[in-house]
């Protein structure tokens, strides 16, 4: 009996399936998996393939010299690139607002007056209310004493802006209650002698006057035109517990749209351009209109241009073709946001700027497979057969999942690309390769949370969250609690943690558990649900999802604890049975192509 091993070289993972071919078809003996060495479809893959083959053999207790053949898929190189471009920017042209949210502002209420430096408080006139600006180095007792003394002299101090984290310390020592905003890092930039308002809400509440355009208009006696100008400020302050607005002569805060690059999409029948700042929906509508896409270019000198050029260059190097011959076959645009420091802000305020993330995919017709096969033959000293269209193989493998039947579609959710194929009842297979998959999800999580830590973002993607509520218990994201007998490290205290394989890992940000969870789920939705629908629509007969009976979700990202469920939910309305694959009833969503290679070989040998 022949002993064969099917090997699937993926972008990230190389998988093997070992089987003995008998008269009743293949008898599967097991499999193995390892990280792909080098870029898919190149001779760099040899070590990875050797590893999985040896591992599959040794797990089954078989020797290498028993092996009849190694079956390798036609590993077409697929490269994907990611880029992100910010399309809005918040700029404070003059210092008009301080919208930050210190943990512990002091006092409560609303104060309006002219800004006066603390050191000038002793000498200031008593004819108008003042807002006291307390710079670095002033002790809280001195600050309180100074304000109390001024008040006794007849100066109406209606609020204070403080550099240090002293708001409650000062408030507790004053004879009257005034709102105090503290931790204003750049307090020296607050203009003096200007009308200003300070508002602090009661704990748990948000400000009501400075977040209302007409509230600000009332305080500063603004005319309708000035009110229109200030309305951006009011909107930026919505949801804050404390805020300061200073009325400078020409102060304004802008929501600027950054002139972003243009993406040109070249289809078989049409060629359309779309600005990056039009947003993801518009870009994707344009992609759809030019479909099938044959290439895409980005405006030179912009991020889009740079990004597409990089993808093209890497690809031309691999395929040993000129970069002009490399063609982009799909693009996925996703709306996202990036926390960025506000230009001109006084307390290190961040604004969430809008951005568009772009994934592009390049696919060559055929990589240097023959060279790879030759080197494998030498390394393993066995017959190596290259063959079988990847999509056909994946479908064959997927159909070993119990409960499936044709018409069946597979969704292979990888790291760089989302691949789909449909096998109809009469055996025809149609397939499509789309840009954007697990790596884009990780990138979105990383940037939307401002982590700048890809590894942590990957953990957040893969594992549930919890919050360490004391030294001895954590609260899971589902609300249940878990008790520990060993005290947790102080670094985790009151922090959100990821419950990874290696234990708890704190997330070093101020985001709440729920915010992180929401970013995680929406990133998965924006990439995988969107791509699943795009892909199924393209392979379904007549674009009609109702013609698909079963969808089997495969690939590394099908191991995710919520992605398959998000997709199943999205396609349920079309009457589709959708679930995570369970290849050969044992392998879960892995090993479909490797298994398909064996099944295909067995079928051919039997004929």
């Amino acid at each position, binding site marked *: 009996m022949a002993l064969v091993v099917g090997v699937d070289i993926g972008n990230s993972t190389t998988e093997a399936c070992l089987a003995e071919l008998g008269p009743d078809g293949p008898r599967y003996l097991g499999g193995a998996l390892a990280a792909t060495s080098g870029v898919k479809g190149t001779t760099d893959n040899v070590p990875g393939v050797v590893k999985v083959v040896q591992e599959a053999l040794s797990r089954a207790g078989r020797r290498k010299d028993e092996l009849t053949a190694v079956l390798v898929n036609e590993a077409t190189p697929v490269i994907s690139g990611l880029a992100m471009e910010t399309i809005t920017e918040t700029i404070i042209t003059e210092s008009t607002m301080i919208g930050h949210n210190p943990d512990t502002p002091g006092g409560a209420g609303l104060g309006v007056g002219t800004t006066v430096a603390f050191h000038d408080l002793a000498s200031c006139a008593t004819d108008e209310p003042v807002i006291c600006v307390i710079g670095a180095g002033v002790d809280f007792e001195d600050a309180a004493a100074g304000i109390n003394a001024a008040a006794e002299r007849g100066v109406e101090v209606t609020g204070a802006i403080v550099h240090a984290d002293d708001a409650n310390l000062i408030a507790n020592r004053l004879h009257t209650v005034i709102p105090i905003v503290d931790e204003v890092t750049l307090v020296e930039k607050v203009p003096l002698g200007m009308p200003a308002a300070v508002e602090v809400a009661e704990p748990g509440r948000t400000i009501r006057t400075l977040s209302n355009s007409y509230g600000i208009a009332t305080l500063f006696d603004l005319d309708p035109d000035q009110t229109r100008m200030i309305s951006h400020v009011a909107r930026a302050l919505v949801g804050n517990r404390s805020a300061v607005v200073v009325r400078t002569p020409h102060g304004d805060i802008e929501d600027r749209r950054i002139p972003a690059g243009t993406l040109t999409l070249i289809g078989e029948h049409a060629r359309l351009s779309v600005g990056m700042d039009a947003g993801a929906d518009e870009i994707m509508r344009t992609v759809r209109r030019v479909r099938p896409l044959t290439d895409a270019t980005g405006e030179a000198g912009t991020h889009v241009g740079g990004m597409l050029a990089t993808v093209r260059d890497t690809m031309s190097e691999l395929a040993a073709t000129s970069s002009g011959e490399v063609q982009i076959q799909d693009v996925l645009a996703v709306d996202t946001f990036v926390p960025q420091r506000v230009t001109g802000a006084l307390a290190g305020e961040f604004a969430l700027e809008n951005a568009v993330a772009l994934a592009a995919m390049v696919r060559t017709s055929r990589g240097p497979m023959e060279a790879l096969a030759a080197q494998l033959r030498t390394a393993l000293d066995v017959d190596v057969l290259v063959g079988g269209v990847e999509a056909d193989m994946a479908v064959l493998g997927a159909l070993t999942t119990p409960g499936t039947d044709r018409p069946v579609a597979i969704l292979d959710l990888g790291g760089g690309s989302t691949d789909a194929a449909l096998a109809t009842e009469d055996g025809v297979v149609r397939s499509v390769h789309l840009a954007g998959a697990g790596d884009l999800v990780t990138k979105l999580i990383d940037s939307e949370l401002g982590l700048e830590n890809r590894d942590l973002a990957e953990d957040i993607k893969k594992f549930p969250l919890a919050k360490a509520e004391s030294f001895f218990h954590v609260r899971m994201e589902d609300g249940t609690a878990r008790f520990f007998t060993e*005290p947790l490290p102080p670094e985790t205290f009151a922090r959100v943690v990821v419950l990874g394989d290696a234990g708890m*890992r704190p997330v070093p940000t101020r985001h709440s558990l729920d915010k992180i969870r929401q970013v995680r789920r929406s990133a998965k939705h924006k990439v995988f649900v969107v791509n699943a629908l795009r892909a199924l629509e393209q392979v379904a007969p007549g674009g009609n999802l109702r013609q698909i009976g079963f969808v089997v979700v495969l690939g590394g990202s099908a191991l995710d604890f919520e992605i398959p469920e998000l997709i199943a939910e999205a396609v349920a309305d079309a009457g589709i049975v959708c679930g995570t694959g369970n290849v050969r009833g044992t392998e879960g969503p892995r090993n479909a192509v490797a298994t398909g290679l064996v099944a295909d070989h067995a079928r051919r040998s039997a004929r």
Partner: protein
Amino acid sequence: MSIVDRRAENARRTPPCVVARCAGDDRLREVRAGLEEEGVPLRVEAVASGDAVELAYEAALASSLGVGIGIDAAGGICVHHAKRPRESPVLTAVAAQARLCGHDAARLVVGLPLKTPSEERENPWPDN
């Protein structure tokens, strides 16, 4: 009937607060300020001598909130929690960080992440 030691309990009858045991009171004002800014009360007990970690642990046991601060004669400061092992305090710091220690003692009570950067603490998290 079992012997009931009411000393600890009597201490607890006073309003709930963090307890500081000080062998020196150099930076006590700063510690106190940190707690006040966060809105958590403090009770101070002067002691003749002692090591900051020891003092903090005793203080934590005496605190009805389970949070204690120890200040030794040299100005060394420790923040401790009654539920932690004696030898594993929440943080130890130098006099210059007194204000942050006050903040962090209060934050242990109200469940907010600590302000002291983790490199300056005893058991930094391997990943940070």
